[in-house]
Every structure is written in structure tokens, then in C-alpha cells.
């Protein structure tokens, strides 16, 4: 059982929705980023998605791409991202961390070495955007074997025929991408999301968390109602990009968390 599994059974027992927050590791700089990550659990974040910076984030909108550039310009790397996670782990042993990014930095490090490093750093699972089920032998299977969760995205284009394939080697939770598009671009509508979540839940026991296009406490509440929780990324990263202090960012996060937890 990973920290992710434990967290979701705890939330389920308390009949509570999960609030997942995404931040880019090393954005705007290592120290501030660490301060923000350390403050997330107290702000009400149940699961932390930690962005691994990459030069070519094809599935992300400009907000997250710019965050990645700020991090890279500040000298962020895969190794430093894991170092940041390990630093966080010294202060928090229960909040799950999901590493989210693209495959090349991991492939470049070497899958086995990466999994060993990530585990040692206290990473619990990963979302690797450019690894669909067709490429499961690359990282998904080795990660599961190493006792980590591999969380897959399901999207509006994942039809019923394909859904079992997407769910097959998914663990931890399912991340439902509520809109076709990049992160931070379009707005999700609770009315459209509900039936899609039901469709996924009819085929899996895993929690379903909805992301993309959620940027206010009200939307967090409405979307969380339709599922087991919600993810907010670009809206938080946008605050960091606007130069807000760690305290201001965490205050913003706390409001979103309150919204999600009202659901």
C-alpha cells in the first residue's frame, strides 16, 4: 500500500473529497518552491503533484510551460526535483507526492536508476504524460514492480472500447482530464464531467480525480462533487508566475482546498 492508497482510504472513511494541487518543482526558484510545497498539507492539500520541468511540455498550456522554463532557467533538474521531494519528506511522512512530467528526463537518467532515486526521495507515484498504455513496458510496469503507483490520464477521447486498456495498469487513482486541450486552457463544466466520471467508475474501483480547467473554489467544489476529488494546477502556478509570495500562494491554495472539501 502506497501513501496514495492510504490517503484515499482515509478520505473515503471520512467521506471527504480529495484536493490535489500541482506545482512545478523549482518554480520560481528552489527555495521558494520548497517553502510552498512544505506548506501545501497545512493549506488543505491531500495529494501533491510535483511537476518535473521539461523543455517541451507538449500537453501543457503556457502557464505551466513558463513555470518549467523558470525552473530550468534556475538550474532545476530531475535530481534536484527529487532532492526537493526528499527535503519535503523530512517534514511530512504521510502526504503523497505524485511526480508529474514527461518521459525524456526519466529515460535519460535510466528507468531503474530513476525508480531507485524516486523511491528514496519519498515519491509515491507518477504521471508521465507521454507514456500511453501502448508503452507500458517502458516505465509503468517497472514502476508498479518497484511498489510505486502509475497514474494514468483518461480523457474525453478515451472511448468505452479503449477505457479498459487505459485502466488496466493504472494504480493509485485515475486522473480524468475533463476537456480536450492543454492544461489551463479550457473550462470544465460539472454537467459534462459527471456522466464521464460515472462511466469510468463503472469500470474501476480506483478513485477518480478530475483535472484541467478548474481555477476557483466554486469550480473546485462543483467538480469535486462529481468525482472523488479534483486537481488544480495552472491557477496555482499562475499565482507563482505573477510573483506572489509563498504565503499568498498558500492562502490561495487554502481557499481552493476549502472549496473542494465543501463538496
Amino acid at each position: 500500500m502506497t501513501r496514495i492508497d492510504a490517503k484515499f482510504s482515509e478520505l473515503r472513511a471520512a467521506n471527504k473529497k480529495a484536493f490535489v494541487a500541482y506545482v512545478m518543482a523549482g518554480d520560481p526558484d528552489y527555495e521558494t518552491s520548497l517553502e510552498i510545497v512544505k506548506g501545501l498539507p497545512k493549506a488543505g492539500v491531500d495529494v501533491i503533484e510535483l511537476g518535473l520541468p521539461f523543455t517541451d511540455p507538449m500537453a501543457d498550456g503556457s502557464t505551466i510551460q513558463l513555470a518549467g522554463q523558470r525552473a530550468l532557467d534556475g538550474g532545476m533538474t530531475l535530481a534536484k526535483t527529487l532532492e526537493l521531494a526528499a527535503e519535503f519528506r523530512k517534514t511530512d511522512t504521510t502526504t503523497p507526492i505524485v511526480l508529474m512530467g514527461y518521459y525524456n528526463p526519466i529515460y535519460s537518467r535510466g528507468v531503474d536508476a530513476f525508480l531507485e532515486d524516486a523511491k528514496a526521495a519519498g515519491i509515491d507515484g507518477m504521471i508521465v504524460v507521454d507514456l500511453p498504455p501502448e508503452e507500458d513496458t517502458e516505465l509503468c510496469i517497472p514502476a508498479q514492480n518497484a511498489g510505486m503507483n502509475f497514474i494514468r490520464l483518461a480523457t474525453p477521447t478515451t472511448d468505452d472500447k479503449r477505457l479498459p486498456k487505459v485502466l488496466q495498469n493504472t494504480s493509485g487513482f485515475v486522473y480524468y482530464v475533463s476537456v480536450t486541450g492543454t492544461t489551463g486552457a479550457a473550462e470544465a463544466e460539472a454537467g459534462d464531467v459527471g456522466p464521464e466520471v460515472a462511466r469510468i467508475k463503472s469500470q474501476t474501483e480506483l478513485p477518480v480525480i478530475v483535472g484541467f480547467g478548474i481555477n476557483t473554489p466554486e469550480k473546485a467544489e462543483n467538480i469535486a462533487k462529481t468525482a472523488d476529488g479534483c486537481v488544480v494546477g495552472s491557477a496555482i502556478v499562475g499565482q507563482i508566475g505573477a510573483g506572489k509570495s509563498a504565503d499568498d500562494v498558500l492562502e490561495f491554495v487554502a481557499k481552493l482546498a476549502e472549496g473542494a472539501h465543501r463538496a
Partner: protein
Amino acid sequence: MNDLFNSFMTGPDENGRFGKFGGRFVSETLMPLILSLEEEYERAKTDETFWAQMDDLWKHYVGRPSPLYFAERMTEDLGGAKIYLKRDELNHTGAHKINNVLGQILLAKRMGKTRIIAETGAGQHGVATATVCARFGLKCVVYMGAHDVERQAPNVFRMKLLGAEVVPVTSGRGTLKDAMNDALRDWVTNVADTFYCIGTAAGPHPYPAMVRDFQSIIGKETREQLQEHEGEGRLPDTLIAAIGGGSNAIGLFYPFLDEPSVNIIGVEAGGKGVNDKMEHCASLTGGRPGVLHGNRTYLLQDDDGQILEGFSISAGLDYPGIGPEHSWLHDTGRAKYVSITDKEALEAFQYCCQQEGIIPALEPSHALAHVMKIAPTLPKDHIIVMNMCGRGDKDIFTVARALGFDMGDEE
């Protein structure tokens, strides 16, 4: 030969792999789209009406077959191997790009797609896509790095004349790879009506195989035409082509892969020289395997797996990756890959103008520079075929600048 077990022509496998290269490294949103494209392409491949339509357009719209021209003066001057140029620069729109675009647009039509997107570097693929979209009445959106929009103004205007919308890409560093990122972002957003027309033999499966198949017309024609010149059964001894993503090269090479007597040489852009400063675009000679834009292939990247910008005088070669089949041909040793610097390419550019009265694009000028290096060392009965994949009209401003010739601000 043509032993299936030892053939170089059977790839990719059902997972889109050429050895360990290739694959389908895309987000889930795009996965169903590339699977349905693969299905449609498999159907079209064996559909005679599809190929009849292609042949008709190739002949009457593009002007194929392109000539295989014996470069007599160059051959004499270099004093060694006999040099033939495959004149794909004479195609409609001035380069090999249209061979592939026609195929993809016909597929898009079959799939009922009404909106075409494309990425472009120098603008040649953008112009070819805009052209064929105009021909078939399809909406066309071309993503182009903001820097390239500036340095390739004539092609931007051409695309606009042809009715395309040109979107300058400012995300990332505003180059060809960023244009490809933004095209993928568009595709992921407009999944229902949009077809992504990729300009080179790279990207997720089935693009590398599909683009290769459409470009293979170059090699197929060469095979027949050389026999008209040199007698039945005569094969070229050496094939040479320039490589950015590698579509013109794979188009020339592919029909000859199982002929062991044919030497195959790909020429990468060496920029200012293939060195630690990475001021080049030579993915094979100066990069290492990685995953980008849907495929595993050789990439220019740093120690952390972050992608580096390429550098070349030729905007069409300015890409940090290469088609996965080339990576595989490189690793298996079936093809050899070399690099040519900007300076050498510029010299070849001028040499071609003066010796043959052909103004080549900067991309094939790289290939020609390598021809100039090896032809003198080869016997007179050795036949080299080089792919003249594009004409140089688009490059005269860049070349003038490099040679210190003042053309004024406007064309």
C-alpha cells in the same frame, strides 16, 4: 537478397518500432487519433483507387516524375564518380515536401477531417500544405516559430496568399520544435475535425512509416530512371541526401535498403561544427537516444534530458531530432551519417549555381558538399545519386547575408 529475415524494409513492427526507435509516445487524448489514422492508412495502402489518385496528382499537379539529371560539368570538374541529381526541386512548390502532403491530405479527406494543421521551419512544408489545402478547399493553419516567421518572410506571404493562417509561435524559444509543440497542442484541443499533417518522417507511429512511404516515390523513380541512363539492372553505387528530420533521405534510400551493393549516406547539418558547444543540428553524430514528439530517436539534449536548440544556416534542418528509421539505420550500420558545416554548405551552394546552373536550397547544399568531398576519391564508373530535394529561391537572402552581399530590406 530480399530475404524477409534479413530485410531492412520490413519495419516498423506492430508497435511502430524500428528496433528500439519509433513508438507512440503521446498523451492519452491523442492516442485514439493516431490509432484511427493508422487504421485508415492501412486501408488506403492497399486501396488501388487511393494510389491511382496519388499518381494522377503526382503527375499532373506536382509534375512527377522529377528528372534524374546527369551533372556532367560537376562530374568532369570533380574528376571522379559520375554524379546524378534527382531533381525534386522541380516539383510544384519547389521541394520534395509536397509528395508527402498530398498523401496525408487525401487521407484527411477520407477520414472526413475539414481542418488541417502543420508545423513548418523554413516554410517549405507550410507552403506545400497550404497549397494542397487550397487545391482541396480545406482550412489550413500553419504553426511557425516567430524567429522563422521573421527570417522566411516570402514563404509566410506565400502561405497567406494560399489562404492559410500562419500562427507565429512564441512559446519556448520560438523555433521549429516549439512550432511542433504548438501544433500538437492545437491537435489535442481540436480532436474532432482536425488532421495533423506532419512534414517529416518523425513523430508517433504511423507518421514515420507513412511519410516514408509517400516520399519513397523519389527512390522508386530513381531506380527506374538510372536504368534508362545506364542500362538494365544498373544500381547506383552511392546515395546521398541531406537530413533534418530525414524525409527526403528516407524517400530516396528506402527502395534501395535491401541492395547491399548500394552505399547509403545521410548528411546532417553541422552548423558551426559538431563540438561541445552544440552549435549544430547533427542529432546522430552529436546527440543520443531520447523521447520527443511521439518517438524515440537520437536527440540533441543535455545531461538532464532537456532538449537543446539546433543551430544551422538552413532553417529546414534546424530540428533537434531525426526520424526514428534513420536512428535505426545508423545503429544497424546500414546507412552512414556524416555532417557538413554551414561554411561547406555555402561553398557547395555557389558551386552548384556556377557548375550546373541550378540554384539549390541550403538543405541539399549540405548533401552536395559531401558529394564534392567524396566524388574525387571514387573511380569514374562509380555512380552517385544525390537528392536535390529543394530549390534555393527561399534561401537567396540568407546566402546574400552570409556572403556579405547587400540586397536591401525587401525582395
